[in-house]
């Protein structure tokens, strides 16, 4: 049966993820040395797992309130005020979601629809464009540049704004580039946002993983931006809790009320066990984050230093856990580089082009691996380049 006329135009317009396509090949091979995974190699800290286990032992297996447990919402708002100096009301300005991903989806659906344009800086995580299309809105891509340290500039933003523009996605610290936005960058962006009366969806899932002493700054902290920003964050990256599927959205009550309404109808409530674990993570997990961040930092320096030494020009990432070397010096495009590296050395990276057309000429290398593993993979990449 032909389902073309049974399926929506939107879902058929959405392209399959470039990461997935590449990894169907990887999964066919044994003995692949992967530097491709986008999640921490650490296990969830034991005290956090224990809190989840204890809740199960006590039989706490019911739905939670739609917005998430009140205690969890209180801890989330305390976290944002202690770390990023922004205060939110736990009663009306937080909703706990199934990962940051759900929060991104429902926030976009609440703020953009047919006829609206959503600005998406790329290279960036692969979900924003498809989710925008599924909301019926039109994605408008802004290509960040290596010479701007992959930051979004006010000028680039200004150039893409039309009278249809509704929302800017702000994905920093960035996957895959490792770029961050500093206060001055955000102030310049904020000025444009206020001038054109836009909203911002700030995906801050990597906010706790920043380096070189540069603490994450949320655009919601910039003057006049709290009321124009929906902040997305979660537990996956900071606390190594990817499998628990827990995230949240923070924002002005008028928006969060609507986001919660949609969340209520499509999800009801985020996983209960994960919420108990997350309360413990927020209360007693600051040292865990610090330990993991220090480990990532050491790996980051090893990876970036070694890539540059072998002639792959690598921008110094200041956030997340990815390096994004330029591979143009090899004369190959992203996909060929990654495919040939995989075939000849069994090392898997993700082609930069999977993160948008502007990622062409780059490859994403995750350093969420042990130093021993990274050394082995880097040695093979070096061999591959010297044999080209």
């Amino acid at each position, binding site marked *: 049966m032909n389902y073309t006329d049974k399926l929506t135009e939107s879902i058929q317009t959405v392209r399959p993820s470039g990461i997935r396509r590449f990894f169907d090949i990887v999964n066919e091979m044994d003995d692949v040395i992967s530097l491709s995974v986008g999640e921490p190699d650490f296990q969830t800290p034991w005290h956090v797992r224990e809190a989840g286990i204890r809740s199960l032992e006590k039989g706490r297996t019911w739905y939670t309130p739609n917005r998430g447990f009140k205690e969890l919402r209180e801890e989330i708002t305390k976290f944002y005020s202690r770390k990023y100096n922004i205060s939110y009301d736990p009663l009306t300005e937080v909703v706990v979601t199934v990962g940051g991903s759900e929060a991104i989806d429902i926030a976009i659906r609440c703020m953009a629809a047919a006829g609206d344009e959503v600005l998406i800086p790329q290279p960036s995580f692969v979900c924003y464009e498809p989710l925008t299309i599924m909301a019926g809105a039109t994605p408008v891509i802004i290509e960040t540049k290596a010479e701007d340290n992959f930051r979004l500039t006010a000028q680039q933003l200004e150039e893409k704004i039309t009278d249809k523009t509704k929302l800017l996605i702000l994905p920093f610290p960035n996957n895959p580039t490792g770029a961050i936005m500093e206060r001055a960058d955000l102030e310049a962006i904020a000025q444009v946002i206020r001038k054109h009366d836009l909203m911002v969806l700030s995906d801050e899932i990597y906010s706790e993983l920043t380096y070189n002493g540069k603490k994450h700054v949320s655009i919601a902290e910039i003057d006049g931006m709290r009321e124009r920003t929906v902040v997305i964050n979660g537990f996956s990256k900071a606390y190594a809790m990817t499998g628990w599927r827990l995230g949240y959205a923070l924002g002005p009550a008028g928006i969060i009320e609507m986001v919660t309404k949609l969340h209520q109808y499509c999800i009801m409530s985020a996983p209960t066990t994960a919420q108990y674990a997350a309360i413990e993570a927020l209360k007693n997990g600051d040292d865990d984050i610090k330990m993991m961040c220090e480990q990532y930092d050491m790996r980051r320096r*090893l990876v970036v230093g070694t890539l540059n030494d072998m002639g792959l020009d690598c921008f110094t990432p200041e956030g997340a856990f990815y390096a994004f070397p330029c591979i143009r010096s090899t004369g190959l495009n992203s996909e060929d580089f990654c495919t040939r590296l995989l075939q000849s050395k069994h090392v898997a990276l993700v082609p930069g082009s999977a993160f948008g057309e502007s990622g062409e000429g780059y490859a994403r290398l995750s350093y969420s691996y042990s130093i021993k593993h990274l050394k082995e993979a880097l040695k093979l990449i070096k061999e591959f380049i010297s044999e080209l």
Partner: protein
Amino acid sequence: MDRLLQLLSENSSLTTAELSMILGEPEDYIAAQIKEYEKSGIIRGYRAVVNWDAVPESGVVALIELKVAPQLQKGFDEFAESLLGYDEVESVYLMAGAYDLLLTVKGRTIQDVSAFVAKQLAAMNGILSTATHFMLKRYKENGVSLVDIDKKDRREMVL
């Protein structure tokens, strides 16, 4: 804790160039630091972590508890130091609790270790009693797990 020592204790094959990158310090500074640790005796050597259980005929190991009569002024030091020269003795610790010294002793066979305990150790001046425990299986040593529990990277490419 000192990051350099931490890194070396986990992976002694890291070169000074690699350590320099990882720690973000100049290579000659790292080299000097390591030399200093070696000179001062903080770093005593570099060796592979071997799972002897996997090596055929690698011998047996016993933990031996010793009760010893302490000596005036010197306590247990002199007696402990007199044990260091024996090839059979792998480690010597002074303990708090029900006994005084704990040794790990290595031999080719149980008979070898027994002979060492009976003929050498027990005969030493100052020994009050010995208790010998033969090791049956190693699960973890020097912070390294020796059993292959779930080593596979189970992370999936999801997006």
